[in-house]
């Protein structure tokens, strides 16, 4: 006999294949991952030329800031695309997953069968994670391929492993956003609030929380480099310390920088950042269990 969880998960994959908007945003994400290597290469190439020009003009005598550039520096822009497009795709995937059954009126039919809310939610979760992993796996292969193509030399085993772990980290980072979208989609009475709620929370996590501890301007937070604590003031130092675990995007940027050896840092694992992201994923999984049958079966309006 088939497990109801696997049936729901399989159905989730079938629905996703026909969801043109989910496919579009996933396509944008994969497209940006493909070109990010070329954008990085082009800008790095320009920086080297600018440095050479500065030397020729005799206006600098310092070392080239990009002299010790790591091969995986070419992936640096992917970090921000995961924070921007990846997280929003994960949210939309979650919201769509929850509201599609409610809008189509299938949810009542489903629960007329011997199916518990936990089984339904687990099936949905499994299906969504399968999709996320599939997208990230494709993105990983595209990143690896673009680094190989641009550098024209084989990527070392160590760097390949670092890239693989980076995409594992990306999955850990995207999972809470995906679940957040699902939870909002499952409990909201209106389609607008189902979409708007998680997007606004994402805005708070990407812009507001990091700004409170760093004094960084919102637009500068679109940079792959993690925001640093403001150099002055007890207010910022206190906020930075308190809000650090909640600043998921900074935790992801920081762990990615360390993994990929960006900004001339030595490669390694940032345990604190991994722990923060894992706790956020665990917290959201717990929130998933709180979804009530009465809410999930409720009608959804504009």
């Amino acid at each position: 006999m088939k497990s109801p969880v696997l049936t729901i998960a399989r159905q989730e994959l079938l629905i996703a294949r026909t969801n043109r908007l989910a496919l579009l945003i996933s396509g944008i994400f994969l497209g940006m991952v493909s070109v990010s290597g070329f954008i990085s290469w082009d800008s790095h190439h320009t920086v080297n030329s600018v440095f050479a020009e500065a030397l020729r003009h005799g206006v600098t005598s310092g070392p080239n800031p990009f002299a010790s550039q790591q091969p995986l520096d070419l992936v640096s822009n992917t970090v921000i695309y995961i924070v921007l497009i990846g997280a929003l795709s994960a949210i939309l995937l979650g919201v769509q997953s929850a509201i599609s059954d409610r809008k189509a009126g299938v949810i009542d039919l489903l629960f007329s069968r011997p199916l518990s809310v936990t089984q339904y939610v687990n099936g949905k979760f499994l299906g969504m994670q399968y999709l996320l992993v599939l997208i990230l796996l494709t993105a990983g292969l595209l990143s690896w391929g673009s680094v190989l193509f641009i550098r024209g030399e084989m990527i070392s085993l160590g760097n390949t492993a670092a890239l693989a772990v980076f995409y594992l980290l990306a999955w850990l980072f995207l999972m809470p956003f995906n679940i957040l979208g699902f939870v909002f989609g499952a409990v909201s009475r209106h389609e607008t609030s189902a979409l708007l709620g998680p997007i606004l929370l994402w805005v708070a996590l990407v812009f507001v929380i990091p700004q409170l501890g760093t004094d960084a301007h919102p637009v500068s937070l679109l940079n792959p480099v993690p925001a640093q604590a403001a150099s002055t003031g007890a207010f910022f130092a206190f906020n930075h310390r308190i809000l650090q675990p909640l600043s998921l995007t900074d935790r992801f940027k920081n762990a990615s920088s360390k993994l990929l050896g960006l900004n001339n840092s030595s490669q390694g694992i940032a345990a604190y950042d991994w722990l923060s992201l894992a706790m956020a994923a665990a917290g959201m999984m717990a929130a998933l269990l709180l979804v009530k049958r009465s809410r999930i079966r409720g009608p959804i309006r504009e």
Partner: protein
Amino acid sequence: MSKAVGAIFLKELNDLLRRRSFMLLCAAMAAVVALALLITSLDYHKQLSDYQQYAQALAQSGAAAPAAPPQLSPLQQLRGGIEYIEIIGPVLAIVAGYGSAAKEKYRGTLRLFFSRPIGALDLAAGKLAALGVLWLIIVLVLFLVMTATMHFIGGAAFSAAAIAKLTLSLAGAWAYLAFWSGLALGLTCFVRQPGSALLICFIIWLTVVLLLPQIGDTMDPDNQVPGGLFQSMHVDKSNEHAIMAHFSGYETTRNALEETSISKHFERASFAFLGVKQIYNQQPVGFIWSETWKDSASLLAALLASTAFAMTQCNKRNLIGRRMK
């Protein structure tokens, strides 16, 4: 304004202002803008206090007086607030524009509505006028929030010229927000399924507000090194310009990419009026306008295009001629 447009306008404005969840979101945006200004003020006061301590220590040791203290330019301090309007504002504008058309589609009131003798453009004109007035009210509230925060917490005084520049900057914000509402209204009427229109709007927002400017910023050589490339090489501004003159093709491509984003035009015009970009700081309005009028004109052109799009899409054929799936 015809009688029908007037009636639609009033009904629409009333609906928008009575939508509690939307008003709550606008209040949240105002709070975030105020928070950004508070943070900037705190940072400035900390810098000033550090400077005073340093000056006092120098005076006690009998050394020469230090350079002038950090200057508070109230308009420059508004940068964070403007950036929040640039990023979060379109999300709210999309929700307002979408909601304006989606409610009609879902409530099924359109057949009754179009059975009345109204002109082909009356519905769109009434809705767009209401959205325009809504954003005018919200921009006025933001103006008060910004000036009050800077005055009472930042301790800054605004001159008449500064008020005029802030007004021009917020006029740009109004055009920017009205553009997004018009686009969302038009798309919601155009697309058969309103939910899909909302998603498409968010994808456009992601591309135009976040992605295109980010690519442009990433390609900026000065943004490649933490703290700035030229600063890390100890290269001053005049030499920076001389060096970058050799990369004019690259800079033109980068600029063209940025200019495809309406957000960047809003940002450039606002930052020029607020003096965030140093070359415009303390300059007269006429000078700033002559240098940046293209950004304001692009903003206006985008607003007119989105208004025209909404006017052509918000009609009987789209709203009741095509059934929702």
